[in-house]
């Protein structure tokens, strides 16, 4: 679905990621893990085409990012930004309908079909009853779910999410992750997401990409790379894994223990 070839990312003089050769197959769900400033968001913005790479290139379906027409690319991948600022009083439904833009460049108004898709996406995120609300009046968690709903309405095979669980309460964190893993398993969609909750990431992801922030990286299945020794190394803090039924619970070790 998406691949990087000798990708190099820098911020100023600092090398964040060096020579990243990475292949994400259809239906896989990846978590990008690393400490603050390790280049997770920079990588995701580069994958989305919002930032040019400092070396190498990114390809979607084997075609380099800059060879895609923007409108066609918008039907291939959707991007959830880390934060949003709403300057105008758009309603929730208008926000979600705007994500249908790539599908009708030549039409002035949306059709009934777009309306149906938008409502379905809102329902999937449990925010259908907010449809007529002004987005500026929503709580942080509600706004986040509306943004994810807009992303679903864009209906792309590839989803890039920068901290989707941000601002969500525990129940909704689990709910959103469940929707995402269902999309991957049942509809063959591909997801690449950033998250700080390792337990949540482990539950939903099939694969993980660890970033050290000095150029080093490690990619593999969750079973291979989400190990206590590796995570402790990449996150710079000792991590313990506890088995609870079928689930693995990741907890940071406390220093005074």
């Amino acid at each position, binding site marked *: 679905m998406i691949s990087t070839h000798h990708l190099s990312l820098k911020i100023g003089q600092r090398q964040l990621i060096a020579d990243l050769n990475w292949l994400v197959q259809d239906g896989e769900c990846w978590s990008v893990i690393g400490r603050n400033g390790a280049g997770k968001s920079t990588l995701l913005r580069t994958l989305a085409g919002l*930032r040019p790479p400092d070396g190498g290139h990114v390809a979607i379906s084997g075609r380099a990012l800059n060879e895609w027409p923007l409108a066609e690319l918008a*039907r291939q991948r959707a991007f959830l930004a880390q934060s949003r600022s709403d300057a105008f009083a758009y*309603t929730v439904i208008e926000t979600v309908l705007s994500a249908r833009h790539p599908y009708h460049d030549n039409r002035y108004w949306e059709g009934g079909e777009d309306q149906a898709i938008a409502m379905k996406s809102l329902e999937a995120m449990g925010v259908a009853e907010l449809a007529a609300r002004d987005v500026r009046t929503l709580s942080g968690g509600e706004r986040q779910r509306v943004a994810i709903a807009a992303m679903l309405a864009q209906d792309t095979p590839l989803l890039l999410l920068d901290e989707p669980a941000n601002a969500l309460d525990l129940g909704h964190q689990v709910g959103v992750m469940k929707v995402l893993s269902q999309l991957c398993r049942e509809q063959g969609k591909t997801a690449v997401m950033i998250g700080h909750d390792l337990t949540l990431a482990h539950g939903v992801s099939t694969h993980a990409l660890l970033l050290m922030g000095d150029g080093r990286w490690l990619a593999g299945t969750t079973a291979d790379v989400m190990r206590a020794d590796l995570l402790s190394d990449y996150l710079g803090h000792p991590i313990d894994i506890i088995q609870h039924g079928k689930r693995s619970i990741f907890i940071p070790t406390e220093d005074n223990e």
Partner: protein
Amino acid sequence: MHSFSRNLQQRAAVTLTGLALFAFASLVFSGMTGSVAIPLSDIPAAVTDLLHGQTTTLSATLLDLRLSRAITAFVTGAALSLAGVMMQALLRNPLADPYVLGISSGASVGALAALMFMCAAWMVDAAAFAGAVVVSMMLYMLARRDLRGGAAAEGGTALLLLTGVILSSACMALVTLMLSIAPESRLRTMVFWMIGDLSGAPLRWMPWVVLAGALIFALRNARAMNVMALHAEAAATLGIRVGALRKGLFFTSGLLTASAVTSAGSIGFVGLIVPHACRFAVGPDHRLLIPAAALAGGSYLLLADTLARTIIAPQQLPVGVVTALIGAPVFLYQLHRLRK
């Protein structure tokens, strides 16, 4: 389920028809009103006379004068209002107006310099336009980063806004300098120009061409403007060429402002208040907002100008005073009701 978009289209049709009728009524009202009122029943005959190129009757002569001024007022108001909508979308800030980037201050410098040296009327207009163009070019050179295309457009528009505000204050300093050294006899015309005045503004084709072009550009990009207003830089992931759209908005709104300021001086408040009021009344969707704001802005300036020339007749007020005197309290009222 299907009702939302159909509703929106119906609402758009009703709103725009209503506004168009209101604009027409304002035009007729403006034609009737003045030191010598023309009764409504005489209007059709006078219009027929005008269309045949005859201005023999008193009504026809008066109507000729009033209508040409009214039409100039309408096109100026529509241009300012449309420029305001575009500038607000460009900067993603509902408090932006066509003057915020200093394009009108540049025009003021040009026009006031021409007025100070007692140039002919057409030279004042040309100097105003040149001033606006010079400031636009400087802005473009200095803040090119914010207007750059495609993948690189990641910085937002903070640089553009700040550069514009600084250029604007620099121009205003020049204006103040000129006002303080100008000969007494020129001061009144200079101040009137600054406030914005439609008396003696000639009827021209050019503003209409600019307005029509800008309207076509804005309507074609209305959907894209919605996406950019909502998603800022991330609009690129929805297939919007953010850099190209920003450049387009910058140049089109700059041209509209230059055109409006050239024919009527820097009339304040129209470009801020009308888009704001329209957003409040019809919602922020640019597909409806753009034509609604153009019609409402035209009607607003037309009515304000009618008031300006009648309220203390035979003396005339500069229309900028009227737009500000009506606009400021209405704006404040709306703002505070919204905050409750």
